[in-house]
């Protein structure tokens, strides 16, 4: 016989559990199961193929390229968005004229939908008469086919992602900076600590919980946000900007190869699970929470 409190606790948990199971765990498990079957054709039930889909993935050059692209994309967007966010937050934290306006300007990209952002940047990137080529031409720069060249396409979409995200992360840093007790600063000043030393020894450690939170979000976004890819390049040219999730979308909804899409999804899940474990398990232990 279960104790009454236990039953009550389970009942209270039930709504959340139902939602989690229905929308997170159940689909994940079903996806895993689907990845062991071939794609169904017509009304025939799909045959069990074991690990064949995973083996096929190893031979899939587009998959490897998507993985490589995503690694570059993550390695570039995550640190630059976070550092930029921190710098912007520090800039608008102090008392300076036009502070509200500056904060708003930094936050503006976050308020725009990614689709709109991508369309605006499409204009920036337009060869010959787009914003960047015009500005560069004043300094003697020539024409750039930013989105149509294999070497510049990925950096171009990375820049959009950083621009879009930094403002969002800035808000968290700004909030953290605002709640930082002023007596610490006074104490440091009394001790004769330099500004830089204070920043390194006090501000940064106190911002660590925020940094971890921002980092988790940045990592997720590096794998999750592909709206601008759909608008700007559709993975081209020659898969130069194909990211993992975009490839899943193409495989699932353009080719209707649901088994392969499920297999790819499991790979993405595994990557995200691994990074989450690294972040919370390893980094999380080093973070000092007040």
């Amino acid at each position: 016989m279960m104790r009454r409190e236990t039953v009550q606790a389970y009942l209270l948990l039930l709504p959340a559990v139902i939602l989690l199971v229905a929308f997170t765990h159940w689909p994940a498990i079903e996806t895993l199961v689907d990845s062991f079957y071939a794609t169904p054709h017509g009304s025939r039930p799909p045959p069990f193929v074991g690990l064949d889909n995973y083996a096929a993935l190893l031979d899939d050059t587009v998959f490897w390229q998507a993985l490589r692209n995503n690694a570059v994309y993550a390695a570039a967007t995550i640190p630059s968005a976070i550092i930029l966010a921190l710098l912007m937050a520090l800039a608008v934290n102090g008392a300076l004229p036009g502070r509200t306006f500056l904060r708003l300007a930094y936050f503006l990209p976050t308020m725009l939908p990614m689709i709109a952002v991508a369309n605006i940047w499409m204009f920036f990137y337009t060869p010959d008469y787009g914003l960047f080529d015009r500005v560069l031409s004043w300094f003697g720069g020539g024409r750039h086919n930013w989105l149509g060249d294999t070497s510049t396409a990925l950096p171009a979409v990375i820049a959009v992602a950083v621009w879009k995200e930094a403002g969002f992360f800035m808000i968290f840093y700004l909030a953290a900076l605002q709640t930082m007790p002023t007596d610490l600063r006074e104490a440091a000043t009394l001790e004769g600590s330099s500004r830089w030393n204070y920043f390194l020894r006090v501000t940064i450690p106190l911002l660590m919980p925020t940094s971890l939170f921002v980092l988790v979000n940045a990592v997720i976004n590096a794998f999750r946000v592909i709206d601008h890819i759909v608008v700007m390049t559709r993975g081209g040219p020659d898969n130069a900007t194909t990211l993992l999730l975009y490839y899943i979308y193409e495989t699932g909804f353009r080719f209707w190869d649901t088994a392969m899409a499920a297999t790819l999804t499991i790979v993405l899940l595994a990557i995200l699970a691994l990074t989450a474990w690294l972040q919370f398990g390893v980094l999380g232990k080093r973070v000092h929470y007040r």
Partner: protein
Amino acid sequence: MIRRRRLLATTAALAAPAVLRAQTVRKLTFYYPVAVGGALTAIVDGLCSAYQKETGVTVEAVYAGDYSQTLIKTTTAIRGGGGPHFAVLLAAEMHSLQDQDILVSLDEIGLDQDGRKWLDGFYPAFLANSHAEGKTWSVPFQRSTAIFYYNKAAFSEAGLDPDKFPTTWSALADTATKLVKRDPKGDVTRWGIKMASDLGNAQWTFGALANQAEQPLMNEAGTEVYFNRPKTIEAMTFWRDLASRYHATPDGMSSWPQLSPDFLSGNTAIIQHTTGNLANVRDKATFPFGVAGLAGKNSPHTVVGGGNLYFFKNASPEERQASLKFARWVSAPERAAEWSIRTGYIATSPAAYDTPALRDFIAKVPEANVARTFLPVATGELSVHENQRVYKVLTDNIQGCLTGAKTPAQAMADAQTEADRILRPFKRT
């Protein structure tokens, strides 16, 4: 007596829903794409409200993006158990839509004597992608061919005759090279020519080029492709040469949505685009422009394109009937003529060209007649099973070649290998 009356009333009440359903399809939904700039949505909405006034049936037209987005949205919605009653999708998608088992043929919906006569009224070229297994699966709607738009002012400026457009590849390359304009620093301020090479459009551009080398890209059953044939490679080489050898077009990918703005802003002198863009260009061009059929290796050749109306299984028999009725209404000569006048798409039947409205229009705007005269040298669009997948491998390799990563021969060989792998399950020989 009373009991009998009650019985009758009950029977009537029971039978009513079926009768009601049969007679009262009051609302239909269809998805349609817009592949060009301009006010197409307003024109489609206008057609629907005219139909509503005439028949009392509300037809809701849902704008669903470009062709591939519309395809994805339609199939996703239908697989989810909902979706439209019919849709305008690429004519070339017939094989892969059949793979998905979501279409209903016109024969199944029911074609009477009149219906068959109506189908016979279309241009045969536009029904080329509609027949399979002895049935008709789609109705031509917004049909086009690829054509060139060219800037006559740029022609004059370059010392070329604006009324004489080249008809062979070598002459075209020569003309395009002459049209390139550079500033004193050597930077290009006007490109000679641009053709779309982004996903969803590259295969159409290439279909025209291959036909210009007189090489079909696939068999009729849609189970084989001919990407690595010498003539196909020749077509790819010509495309690449326009950038690498003649420097008449920029290196790398040029995307479809950018072509019209490039042309209209004077950045590019010649673009290969759809006839459906004519109204848009006429509206916005600030310079005299011309329309010409595509050139060819030896003589002009082009490719048909555009969308057909497809009908879906998930609609009830009554809804299918009602959808077909709308299709017949919208493709009647007067409507087809009006559609052609307002958009630039080729009217789908010869009868439409006999209407006074279209005849007067062509007398006034001779450009509107150019595309139709090239129908005899037009081939069908690349259409195979697993269409989107084959489009993707072809496009990846075209882009690989245009960005200089692969030679034309290598790109086409790779595309062939990949496409063969994709099409293997469909070969039953």
